[in-house]
């Protein structure tokens, strides 16, 4: 029998997930609408002084990005678990880790792309100093894959529980705190006119660590969950 190419199967999986997502647009839009609402509410809540807003902008943007990511995270494996597609994924004739990389990639694409596009708007709404705009964008670019791949571990662990939502947040938030710290540190450094390469380099390191190791952790967690 001809050897099946991993790439073919991976493309098939990615294509299917994208078309499934395109048919559940409301699920897709919820987190991003939540994010926009939170960001627009802040100036109303703390008052419209440009200095205060500019000062809190990095934290506000990143905390809301983090929370909105948690909101959409369950989509990663929940539906697949319910309809049995998850079992079929574990039985694909490729290393399951590759399939998981595909799932994480699709989730990242669908959750982070809107965020990356909207980032300048968010910066504008909160009066973030212009010098920091590019750094904000870089932190989002480096940080969102971490959210997706660390989140995948949590979702894989809790997918078989009926009400895993609260547990998922409790499980993941502590793990994501370093990301939040480095990201806001980078943006604040840039806002005060200094080079932000240090914290960005740390974020890059976290990115490499999580994206390479999480597929293995997710695989182990899924094997427990489909029991």
């Amino acid at each position: 029998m001809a050897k099946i190419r991993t790439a073919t199967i991976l493309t098939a999986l990615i294509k299917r997930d994208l078309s499934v997502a395109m048919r559940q647009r409301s699920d897709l839009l919820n987190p991003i609408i939540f994010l926009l609402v939170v960001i627009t509410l802040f100036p109303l809540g703390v008052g419209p002084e440009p200095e205060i807003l500019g000062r809190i902008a990095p934290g506000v943007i990143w905390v809301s990005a983090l929370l909105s990511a948690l909101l959409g995270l369950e989509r990663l494996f929940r539906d697949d678990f319910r309809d049995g597609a998850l079992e079929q994924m574990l039985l694909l004739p490729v290393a399951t880790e590759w399939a998981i990389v595909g799932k994480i990639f699709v989730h990242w694409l669908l959750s982070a792309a809107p965020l990356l596009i909207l980032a300048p708007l968010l910066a504008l709404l909160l009066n973030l100093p212009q010098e920091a705009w590019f750094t904000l964008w870089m932190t989002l670019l480096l940080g969102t894959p971490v959210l997706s791949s660390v989140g995948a571990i949590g979702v894989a662990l809790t997918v078989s529980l009926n009400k895993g939502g609260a547990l998922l947040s409790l499980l993941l938030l502590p793990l994501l705190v370093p990301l939040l710290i480095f990201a806001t540190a980078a943006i604040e450094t840039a806002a005060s006119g200094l080079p932000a390469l240090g914290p960005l380099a740390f974020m890059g390191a976290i990115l490499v660590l999580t994206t390479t190791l999480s597929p293995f952790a997710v695989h182990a967690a899924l094997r427990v969950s489909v029991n």
Partner: protein
Amino acid sequence: MAGLLSAQQVTSVRGERTLFKALSLSLNCGELCQVVGPNGAGKSSFLRICAGLLPLQQGEIQYQGESIEQCRTAYHQDLLFIGHKAGVKPELTAIENLMFFAQAQGQPFEEPPYDVLATVGLVGLEDIPAQQLSAGQQRRIALARLWCSSAKIWILDEPFTSLDTAGIELLHGRFDEHLQQGGAVLMTSHQALSQLKGAVSQIVLEYQH
């Protein structure tokens, strides 16, 4: 001689309860094995262990004489597993579901497999998302995979669920064909399989307290 699929001394313990102890199975080309037993006896667990979905607690499962953990990719390429939850995506149409399954098995269709849908009686429903179809029709989408896969080993968990009599007959016909072509089937069902022409063996599981 090593069969196509064999299980030796498989034991499964779920929680405090031993589902079955030292269960053995040997499945050769052209054979069908039906696992029977009351609800909760561990039929599904046994099938899932054989498919490699559940970890093996004791014993060994071999595919062509090799442990399935060692030849996982080759085994899964030659295996078609349809469980209780069939893995049909409710948002996608029958055609899209089938195209995905075919690609994932490494045998993509060159054009949409309308003939397969005709065989399983889903003509005219190819553009409707699976969630709008009835349970039996969704089952037919999943079972349509049996007509377009070259996998030799089929592991089917209650394939007749929600099928009508015509569907059950159709499936029997397909089993006969598959067995004649040298395939093997491991399945659970509460139905008698007396209509089949080929060799049918049974494994009986008792409910253990």
